[in-house]
């Protein structure tokens, strides 16, 4: 019984074999990659742009820094970080999903920033970078899709430079019950929006379910502390609908 439990993990509300989750998540993002940014604007009513801006403000990224935009997908964060690091710094966009990286790569080229941003396919659980490589690691709306979140956090801790910081932007638990109920109702519309815009409601059904299954603020904080980060704290955004966790590597 116990062995069985260890061999499965959640994919939305479903229990699936651990080995299958990455493939299933991969299928979701292959399907949505082309219109991912458009759908972000639709479901968040544009607020994701402000949340990302706020996250960048908390990153303390400066000229010359090395930044890892993990699960960076279509490159939103890479494009925000690139002007901050200047020509002396570098931004690495890493994502496990090839379709998302393709979209991100095209956007980076269109923005005229291929020199400052490099991109790579990488699994967050075993990052292909040397120890102490980055001043800042940012994973935005990506951790909940990772099969082994603890392994991913440990991997981030390993490649983060001493004194560097990791930011985890993720959906979380609303602080007020009323807001939580309103948000639940609103998020039930997302599969419908997915159907209308992309003719794909299943991917956005997974999004809704994966948000519900993601650890709350305090649990994620505990996980980051267990992974070896220090001074872990978080900022609730929009009443806790999202949270930005920050941890440092001493």
């Amino acid at each position, binding site marked *: 019984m116990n062995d069985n439990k260890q061999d499965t993990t959640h994919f939305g509300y479903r229990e699936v074999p651990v080995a299958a989750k990455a493939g299933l998540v991969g299928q979701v993002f292959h399907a949505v990659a082309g219109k991912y940014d458009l759908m972000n604007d639709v479901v968040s009513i544009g*607020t994701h742009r*402000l*949340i990302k*801006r*706020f996250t960048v*403000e*908390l*990153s*303390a990224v*400066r*000229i010359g820094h090395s930044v890892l935009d993990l699960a960076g997908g279509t490159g939103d964060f890479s494009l925000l970080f690139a*002007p*901050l690091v*200047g*020509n002396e710094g570098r931004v690495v966009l890493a994502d496990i999903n090839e379709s998302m990286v393709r979209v991100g790569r095209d956007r980076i080229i269109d923005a005229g920033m291929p020199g400052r941003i490099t991109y790579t396919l990488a699994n967050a659980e075993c990052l292909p970078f040397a120890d102490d490589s980055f001043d800042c690691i940012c994973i935005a709306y990506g951790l909940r899709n990772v099969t082994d979140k603890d392994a991913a956090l440990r991997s981030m801790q390993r490649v983060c430079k001493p004194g560097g910081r990791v930011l985890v932007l993720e959906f979380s638990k609303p602080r007020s019950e009323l807001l939580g109920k309103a948000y639940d109702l609103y998020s039930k519309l997302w599969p419908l929006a997915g159907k209308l815009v992309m003719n794909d409601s299943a991917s956005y059904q997974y999004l809704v379910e994966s948000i519900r299954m993601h650890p709350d603020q305090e649990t994620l904080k505990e996980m980051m502390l267990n992974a070896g980060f220090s001074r872990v704290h978080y*900022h*609730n*955004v*929009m*009443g806790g609908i999202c949270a930005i966790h920050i941890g440092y590597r001493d």
Partner: protein
Amino acid sequence: MSVALLQSAMLLPLELAINQMLALDPASQARLATVAGNTLAIELHKFALPVFISVHPDKLRLSPRHEGVATATLIGTPIALAGLLLRRQPLTTLQGSGVEIRGSTGFVQSLQQLLLQLHIDWEFHLGRLIGDVPTQLTADSARAAGDYLQRTAQRVREEISDFMLEEGRLLPSTAEQERFAEDLQTLGLRIDRAAARVAMLER
């Protein structure tokens, strides 16, 4: 923390406008690069919200928070700060400006220089949008309106001055002011001498 989002959102249009303006003068990008990596904090009197202007190699970034120490901090009223940053002479002293500065004055001077040296060829950029002939007409009209306003303002200043000094006799003329100042100085000297004599007699 939704307040933080609102604060960022409020500064966003201003940041876009400033960067758009800087982008219209290609030379400003090179000047910006020389002060990149620095941050100016602005604290307005009676406003709880500070504004941080971070200089990046090709843009300015405005935010309500800054992780780290600002290179310089300007403290004052919005009007005093605007007057300081927009005045047409290089910044040499803050005396009488109503603005307090902390940190690197050199950085503030560099930023003000950047604003002073900003040269935007509005006619060129407008021409790309609406065409050469409409631009020429618009520019000529704007120049004529500007000249008229300048002449009118000058004439109004002279009229008011004439009325206050000559017709209404509400203010003293320059000669009268100078004579009064001389009398005041003479009186001051006499008082000093009298005080010295009294002191001598008392001894």
